[in-house]
């Protein structure tokens, strides 16, 4: 009966999974907001962090460095409020994948940089060594969480549910 009303095949997402997805959304979204905020307060540093990887052509470096913080905050807010969870999760996973490739490449080429994930401008603290291993592990963990959210986006407490729920009473009035 549920399937008929919502127009989608009834796919029961286990209760524990719904709550797990909520937590995963909040974790990934929270990290995005934090990472985006620390970058957006100093766009110049964000651009330099992108450049420090020496991967992208110089013509695109300022564009990526300036746009990325805003995109991160936007995706973060969408995940936290649970709006367009599947799309934002896919975007999150793709971005994490890009970061994992970038950090691995920096490691492989022996660059001495900070990942620039949280607004350092790619600058290592004086006397500090790169922590590529930890950065990769963290991004891989976030990647997995994002993939889970993309696979079962119907987590608990999400605006997506509100939008879907709204369509039902209106269509039933018609019949």
């Amino acid at each position, binding site marked *: 009966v549920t399937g008929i009303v919502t127009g989608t095949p009834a796919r029961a997402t286990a209760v524990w999974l719904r709550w797990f997805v909520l937590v995963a959304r909040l974790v990934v979204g929270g990290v995005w907001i934090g990472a985006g905020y620390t970058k957006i307060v100093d766009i110049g540093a964000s651009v330099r962090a992108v*450049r420090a990887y020496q991967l992208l052509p110089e013509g695109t470096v300022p564009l990526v460095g300036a746009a990325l913080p805003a*995109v991160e905050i936007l995706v973060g807010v969408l995940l936290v409020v649970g709006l367009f969870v599947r799309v934002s999760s896919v975007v999150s996973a793709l971005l994490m994948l890009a970061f994992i490739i970038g950090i691995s490449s920096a490691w492989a080429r022996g660059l001495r940089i900070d990942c620039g994930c949280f607004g350092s401008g790619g*600058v290592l603290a004086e006397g500090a060594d790169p922590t590529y291993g930890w950065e990769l592990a963290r991004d891989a963990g976030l990647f997995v969480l994002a993939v889970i959210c993309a696979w079962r986006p119907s987590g608990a407490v999400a605006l997506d549910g509100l939008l879907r729920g709204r369509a039902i009473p209106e269509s039933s009035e018609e019949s």
Partner: protein
Amino acid sequence: MANKNKSAAKNRAKNVAVQKRSGLSPALIAGIVVVVLFAAAVGFGLYYSNQSKIAADAAVPAGAVAAGGDQNGILVGNASAAKTMDIYLDFQCPVCKAYETQMGPTIDAAVAQGKVKVIYHPLAFLDRFSSTQYSTRSSEAAACVSETPGAFPAYVKLLYGNQPPENGNGLPDSQLVSLATQAGAPATVADCINNHTYSGWTARITDAASKANVTGTPTVMVDGKVIENTQQALTAALA
């Protein structure tokens, strides 16, 4: 069977209802808003890209040396000295201050003997460590002071001597001005500092340093090669 027909009818009714709402469903509105916000983020990126191109023809202070034709640093010493030393620094950076305190006498002596000329690159890498973008403001002020021959080296020492703590408010412009006159700049330096005359130049040299793969301060090069920040490396490079 009856149930199936019923459901088909319901679905048709639902489709009609969706069409009747003619693009005003909350989901669609939310979707449009999100797409517009994403476009704004990318648009901001494009705008920023263009801004950084404009900075390329910013005003250049009189003390800026045409090293390689780029005028991205301030020259101290005899321009015809055999060796060239590039010091990439940030007046907000404690390690830069420590470097100047420890290595300053060695560098000054080599400059006085005419063995080396030093090109200072006062970068704005650490703006996030003050609430007032002190890195940028101190770099602009140093550019203003470079207009007075001989005042710049004294100003470097004064700025390090009065270095504000990280995560504070930085020195106010008024103090940047009073230190500048103390270093020998005329009273007119106040206009240059207060009007941020060389903000474009500061942005440009910071960008240029980043493009030269300078990822931290202090970075010290002798004849284009990065040396370690130790007394030993400095002595060897200047020998």
